């Protein structure tokens, strides 16, 4: 929702307890509830930032709420060196970028094919087949997958990308199919009249119309692959190609955790997620059928 929508909307929700300037009615109870709810995000974030700036002896003292004084910025430099941050970052970025692009491309194609061929039994069966994949817990199949990917020479970040794209198809296609169904077939028919091929219809008409769903799927794919731990940990054979979440285990021994370095490193790893969230939330929240039928 955009800034201009919000006050009108809350005004509509509002029935009693009206106050504020003319035309703006503020529901103080709801606002208070939202403030409290926002603490669930802000408080852990505060701890993360504060922890990243503490020296080890500052960690042990007080409630943990106190802001560290003096600030210990060296944690970031130390974590940067210890994790070999640029290398791990590039590896994670590689996995993430291609997982997102792959998920968008593959899942939307699958969804388009299934949704527009719903009268064929084969495609309905394919839909059920893809859905059934969601019922198989990932840890059950991980060792066979490792064996398979090793035979195919995919025990590296490329294999992780492949599995992310593949593993995401069932859930993403489910999202896309529902969305494709809501797009009027008449749009496609008019394009066909003008001589468009199926690929052109998909590329020029359907895929742009899928924009809101692309944003949703893209965000899921981004978060899933950026934060993934288990798959890269077990699949990537060469430690030099390991991704950030796995490399960050460096700060956690069996009985020892280097909290300040760990949190400095987590913050650095979180930065891209924050940036993507700020950039992408507009697309997710913007009008669902924006520019669909003109």
């Amino acid at each position, binding site marked *: 929702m*955009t*800034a201009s929508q*919000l006050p009108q909307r809350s005004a509509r929700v509002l029935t009693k307890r009206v106050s504020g300037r003319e035309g703006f009615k503020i529901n103080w109870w709801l606002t208070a509830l939202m403030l409290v709810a926002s603490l669930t995000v802000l408080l852990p974030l505060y701890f993360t930032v504060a922890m990243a700036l503490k020296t*080890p*002896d500052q*960690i*042990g*003292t007080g409630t943990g709420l106190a802001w560290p004084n003096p600030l210990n910025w060296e944690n970031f430099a130390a974590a940067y060196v*210890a994790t070999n941050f640029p*290398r791990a970052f*590039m*590896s994670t*970025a*590689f996995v993430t*970028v*291609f997982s*997102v*692009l792959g998920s968008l491309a593959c899942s939307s194609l699958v969804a388009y094919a299934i949704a527009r061929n719903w009268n064929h039994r084969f495609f309905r069966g394919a839909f059920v087949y893809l859905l059934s994949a969601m019922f198989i817990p990932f840890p059950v199949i991980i*060792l066979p997958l*490792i*064996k398979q990917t*090793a035979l195919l020479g995919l*025990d*590296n*970040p490329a294999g992780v990308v492949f599995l992310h794209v593949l593993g995401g198809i069932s859930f993403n296609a489910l999202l896309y199919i529902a969305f494709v169904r809501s797009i009027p077939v008449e749009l496609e028919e008019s394009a066909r009249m003008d001589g468009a091929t199926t690929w052109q219809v998909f590329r020029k008409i359907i895929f742009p119309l899928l*924009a809101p769903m692309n944003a949703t799927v893209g965000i899921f794919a981004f978060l899933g692959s950026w934060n993934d731990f288990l798959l890269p*940990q*077990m*699949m*990537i*054979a*060469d*430690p*030099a*190609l*390991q991704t950030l979440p*796995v490399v960050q*285990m*460096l*700060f*956690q*021994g*069996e*009985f*020892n*955790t*280097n909290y300040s370095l760990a949190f400095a490193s987590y913050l650095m790893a979180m930065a891209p997620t924050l940036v993507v969230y*700020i*950039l992408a*939330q*507009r*697309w997710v929240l913007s009008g669902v059928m924006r520019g669909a039928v003109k």
Partner: protein
Amino acid sequence: MKAAVPATLPSRRSLFRVAGLAGAAALIPLSGCAGHAGQQNGVTTLRFMQNKPEVVNYFDQVIKDFEALNPDIRVIQDFNEGNFVPGLVRNDPPDVVTRGFAKATADFVKKGIFADLSDLPAASTIDPEMQELISSWGQYNGNEVSALPFSLAAAGVIYNRDIFDANGVAVPTTWDEFVAACETFKAAGITPIYGTFKDSWTLAQGMFDYVSGGSLDTAEFFTRINGKGADISAGAAESFTTNFGPALRQMLQLVSYSQNGASSKNYADGNAAFAKGQAAMYLQGPWALSQLVSANKDIRVGTFPLPVTNNPEETKARVNVDMALSITRNTPNMAAARRFVAYLLEPSVVNTYNEKNAAFSPLKDAPPVTNPQISGLDESVRKARYYQGAGTYFPPSVPLHNYIQSFVYSKNGDQFLAALDDEWRRVAERTAV
């Protein structure tokens, strides 16, 4: 609410273009350094997987020194232990491995995953008593040496030297002296033992292992109970019920000397509180020492083995083989791997490592430990008065830690031991061949 997003965002298309470029840029260095370990231009590449992320820097230095002496070998260090089993599945495991040696690693040994190291010259420099800690778990083909100890962690009672001195308490050598010391602290208003019962593993490795290990021969007990197999019952001479009763009474005594509210404290709380001098003693292993010092660099601590009987000669320390060196059986780089293992077991490497990490060297002629934090355990280790914790003998399918925790809360020893006997019998039934 103000618009959080500036109006002039890059278009989706240009963002994708940037993302694509970033991805392509990522590909170039990746493809450059990809490629499997092995032989290349006469240089053998070894993969060395070690189990302690906190000592990566030490091994980086060791590897540097080794490579300088052996220009034909390159060693890649990997601390991602979670990749060991996948490595086996891929049939491409690391060449040299260190693992904490207990039941889980012993299972790998029994399956013949590691090569025989008995003919390695360095194997004869190792204290046979410490080698026995590994071979007691079973040897492949009955006589192979699948792992060589690299570091031995000895655990006992960590005590605050300043609090002991201020109250005129000497390090206790008998159970009665220990109880008297606890009473002295209690009378002075000092918590005798800091309990962290919320983390149930601290109860298992602490009081459960210490008291049982000090009062009975754990290795022998588990050999007997394993021999009994699925026939075990509470009344049998081999059962937990028959053997662990006295230990439980002493455990409850230790519980009574812990602070109020110990059940809501975890390991990290315990480290912070003990570092601040909130208790005289702490039932933890050497792994806690670095945490204590990092929380309070001025703390003066020592460690003594918990005396469980009134005969000081019987006092034993809890040990575990924190790192054991192995070479995977099918490595194509056997010769290079053996040279690396031999280098790691050179006194200058292995002794320095253990000195730096508050652990004991496995070499026969290791110098005596001078680190005041653990020197109190030196005699026990040198005279081989030690045991591996009873808790480490349990299969992971028995939730031992939770049983111990509920015993500490309910104080119902009979129920606890009967449950252990039941669990043990059920596992034996399931795994019987």
